[in-house]
């Protein structure tokens, strides 16, 4: 039995165990929570006058997926929207000072 | 309604230079509108330029001519004060015509 095959025999049971426990599918409540978080972050960006168009697209995709009942996709899209919204908030806050370095002196 | 044809015809010596700019969407039929539907083709097919009843230039245009199309050419035999008659017709049968004095 070469080293290679011995490693294989060890990993094999590991895989089977993982496959046994079904990953829970996202539900409507998961989606609503994720969407609310994303929406809040995007509103904060709006207050800073610095939203991104891609956040809005991700939010609409999330809603569309949820309406179609595909909550896995909906939660993923909502999470992505939240990340984008947070990035736009970070950008607005960091630029509050950063812009001064770019000014022509 | 002001004519859709703007024209400048200037004679120097026995040669007259003609420039024309025509207001027309020149839709090719390949472009989609905001809703994603194809805008149907709507373009000028033929423009004729005549002096004293004789054609001095005829343009046959396809869907690849720019919006608000422009063309420039020159011809001999026109003199100041002559009438230059320009008329176009498009694929929907719409048309317009105008007459300009050679300056």
């Amino acid at each position, binding site marked *: 039995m070469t080293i290679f095959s011995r490693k294989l025999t060890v990993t094999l049971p590991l895989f089977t165990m993982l496959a046994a426990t079904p990953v829970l599918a996202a539900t409507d409540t998961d989606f609503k929570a994720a969407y609310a978080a994303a929406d809040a972050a995007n509103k904060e960006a709006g207050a800073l006058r610095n939203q991104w168009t891609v956040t809005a697209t991700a939010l609409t995709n999330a809603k569309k997926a949820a309406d179609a009942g595909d909550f896995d996709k909906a939660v993923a899209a909502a999470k992505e929207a939240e990340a984008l919204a947070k990035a736009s908030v970070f950008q607005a806050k960091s630029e509050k000072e950063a812009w001064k370095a770019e000014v022509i002196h | 309604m002001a004519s859709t044809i703007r024209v400048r015809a200037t004679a120097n010596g026995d040669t007259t230079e003609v420039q024309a700019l025509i207001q027309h969407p020149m839709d090719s039929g*390949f472009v989609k509108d905001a809703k994603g539907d194809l805008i149907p083709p709507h373009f000028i097919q033929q423009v004729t330029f005549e002096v004293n009843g004789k054609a001095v*230039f005829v*343009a*046959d245009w396809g869907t690849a001519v*720019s919006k608000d199309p422009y063309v*420039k*050419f020159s011809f001999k035999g026109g003199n100041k004060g002559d009438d230059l008659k320009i008329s176009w017709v498009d694929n929907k049968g719409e048309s317009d015509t105008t007459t300009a004095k050679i300056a």
Partner: protein
Amino acid sequence: MTPIDHQFSATRRLVLKGVGVVALAGLGVLRFGAMPAFAAANDKWPEEAFKQKGAPEAIKALYGKTAEVSDKVKLDAPEIAENGAVVPISVTTTLTDVTSISFLVADNPNALAASYIIPAGTMPSVANRIKMAKTSNVTAIVEAGGKLYSATKEVKVTVGGCGG
């Protein structure tokens, strides 16, 4: 086949075809597959030519013959179009007895962009603005003394702006 032969045989073929057409017309049997009246010869809008996809087919439909490259045809076109929607193109030539000038964009959905009838007394030069779908060869055709001469240039076209 050196160009001269090519030209000679081309004209010979044309002459034969012409004779054939006259003979058939005489017999009144022309209607079968009517010979396409070469649009450039009359004032009707050359629908057939504008329908063709490729440049060679469009030239064939328009003039019924092929063109040879000639340095007497000066095609002026930008190296990089500022915008594919408005590409200023113009042609001028020292050739005499010019009866028609056409512009073709090889990679447009339909190659033939514009065709102009040049009556006697009109100078053989035209400027216009055309649309180009993408980077492509642009060809200007000049019909002079019944023969076709051409010049071709590549014009680069792409969208502008940074993203959206």
